């Protein structure tokens, strides 16, 4: 079949328009990914040429304890397992409260969202000061209330739970998404439930939650991905300590790459992280048929 001049004209124009994105992807995403895959099979310290070592970096990750790859992965898994549900529950709770039709609600919404627009590094520094065991405002307040002071980030057994608690500070983004989801639930469903005599709890359980399941699904996946990429607060506040209690995977990866100059190992760690995130996302997508409800059957 012969195509018209117009067809070819539009086709060329189309490709020309998407070319910047395609080139950007090839040069700045796929190119570095392929390079890092190659580097992961080498011993490489930036200033010397890479030396091919086969699977050694991948084996070392699992077998060389001093590299602490498995330990840092475990720290990250604990963080993800605790912080993601915590963020989802608190964000949903906040969204439910902010979804009430009360006066001044927009101010409350703004107040709860503000922490999200504050630069992360500034927030983290402020929290560092607040949680200072001897000089911080948090312990001073606890003392005023006659409560024992917390050790927060200064002791191995409390440092990770403290960072998990701090993650709640950033619920603003999730809360807004939940709020949008809540406002998208048809009012007729609640009216029908009310007529049928359903109480608040049953309404929440049988209408709100199922209707929000696509939102929860989205936030769950993005939450897990960002939890596995956790870096800045630990880097700024604890540097992985005390005693590796907050030695997150990405912090370990960063140190191996830029402090130890083990670029090959760091690249292998990056690929392992990529595989883990892909696998978790795949499992969640496969499981979504059982618990995510869409208005239109997919």
């Amino acid at each position, binding site marked *: 079949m012969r195509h018209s001049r117009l067809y070819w004209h539009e086709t060329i124009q189309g490709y020309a328009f998407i070319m910047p994105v395609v080139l950007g992807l090839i040069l700045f995403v796929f190119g570095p990914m392929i390079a890092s895959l190659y580097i992961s099979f080498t011993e490489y*310290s*930036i*200033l*010397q040429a890479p030396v091919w070592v086969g699977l050694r970096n991948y084996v070392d990750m699992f077998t060389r*304890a*001093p590299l602490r790859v498995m330990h840092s992965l475990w720290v990250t898994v604990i963080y993800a397992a605790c912080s993601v549900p915590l963020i989802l529950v608190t964000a949903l709770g906040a969204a439910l409260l902010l979804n009430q039709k009360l006066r001044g609600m927009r101010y409350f919404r703004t107040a709860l969202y503000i922490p999200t627009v504050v630069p992360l590094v500034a927030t983290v520094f402020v929290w*560092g000061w607040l949680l*200072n*065991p*001897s*000089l911080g405002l948090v312990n001073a307040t606890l003392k005023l209330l006659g409560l024992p002071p917390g*050790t927060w*980030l*200064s*002791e*191995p057994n409390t440092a990770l739970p403290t960072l998990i608690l701090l993650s709640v500070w950033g619920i603003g983004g999730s809360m807004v998404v939940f709020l949008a989801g809540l406002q998208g639930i048809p009012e007729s469903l609640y009216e029908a439930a009310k007529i049928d005599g359903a109480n608040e709890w049953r309404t929440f359980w049988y209408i709100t939650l199922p209707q929000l399941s696509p939102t929860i699904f989205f936030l769950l996946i993005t939450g897990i991905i960002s939890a596995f990429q956790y870096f800045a607060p630990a880097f700024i506040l604890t540097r992985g*300590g*005390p*005693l*590796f209690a907050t030695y997150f995977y990405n912090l370990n990866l960063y140190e191996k790459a*830029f*402090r*130890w*100059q083990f670029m090959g190992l760091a690249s292998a760690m990056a690929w392992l992280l990529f595989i883990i995130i892909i696998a978790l996302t795949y499992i969640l997508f496969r499981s979504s048929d059982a618990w995510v409800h869409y208005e239109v059957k997919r």
Partner: protein
Amino acid sequence: MFRERTHASSKCAVAVVAASTVIIAACAAPATTRVIEVTKEVVVTAAPGAGAIDPNAKFQLTYLNICFPSSMAVTDLMLAAFGAKYPNVDVKVDCAQGDYAEGVFAQAAAGNLPDVIFSADLFTVPFVNAGVLLDLEQFDKADDSFSFDDIYPNILALGQVPGKPGTYMIPASWDSVQMYYNKDLFEKSGAPVPTDEWTWDDLIAACKIVQEKNPGVYCVANGGTEGWDWWAYFIPWIVGHGGYPVSEDFKTSTFSSPESLAGIQAYVDLWTKHKVTIPIGEQLPSGRDGCFIAGKCATYFMIPGLMKTFREKITDFTWDVVQMPALPKKRVTGMGTYGYGISKDSKNPQAAWELIKFLASPTGQRLSLTNYIGVPFLKSMANDPVYERLQPPPQNIQAFLKGGEIGIFPPNGYPPKCGSLYAGLINQTIRTALEESIRGVKTVEQAFKDADAEIQSCLDTAQ
């Protein structure tokens, strides 16, 4: 990555030099001024043998610094001297931001390192192993006005790597760690005032009195979130008990030898038994420097570069310096310094040499001393009259001179793959073992036997 520092350009430096007619060291900078004393002597003595550069050539020399107070002061001295000799050369100084080594490696990989780069004992091994720095001995040999032979070998060693010929850094000062102390605090507490003859037992006994009389004061400004794992603090404890962390051929890790363990145990006891240090994990509002300046830390073990800062900032108590207290087998302390080297990418290495060698000239050394940013490392200056013209504090600046002779440098012949006492696996392992010991997670013996095993496993595979 780098922020350009506003500095007196070489032209301004020349103006400063030309305008200055003050005789060197006749008067030290007042305690509150930040002005660097630059004198005409710079013009007279700077680089007499610099024949390789055309004095009329116009070009730019690039310079990467870590801009903390004493390094900026040293830089100003170098710029003034260089500017006087080569007014046509523009020196562009950048202040490094973020992780310094990371930035240098990135620039090195891109092949665009500046001519002169800041270095320090902790960077020597990684920079030299990565080929970032040029060997300065080639410049020394070609320069009749300069000789490394007049520099104390222990400070020069901080710019050298065992097994690799060459010297890669001109140090800023004869930097050894000695004890700054708050004299008023000791006196008001009724505790004896430290002297150069003290042992650690003397200090610990006095510390207990100071802390008892001054709740909230830490006697030894070591601990918190930093410093406690610095080799220059804890390796001397091992050496001072007759041990050493590694065999001479760097094939056997000996952190768990009886002598090493005794030294580490005594060091850990400062936290666990005597409780005279800052508890591990304690976050000080303005670091350990700030703790001493605020009068909340009675002593602070550090290099001479802090004299200038303390002179400027401490106005409400008397402070001084004494030698590091003695340990059972010997009095010993760590050497640690920063300095400057020439990068592999330098487009004007000879000009870079002319710039940095000023640091090691008698004039540069005197200026460094009279500005309280360093202590001369030239053997020929041991009895220089300039010392007599200094104004206190510190009263006992000689502690840095005498202390320099008992200084040791870090064991830095470990295989690169195992890291060093500053970075990599060895640093991580030792830091962990120390922290476990101080926190009581393991005994010193357990922790350092485990550490030795970990390091040994790396040494065995890396040989």
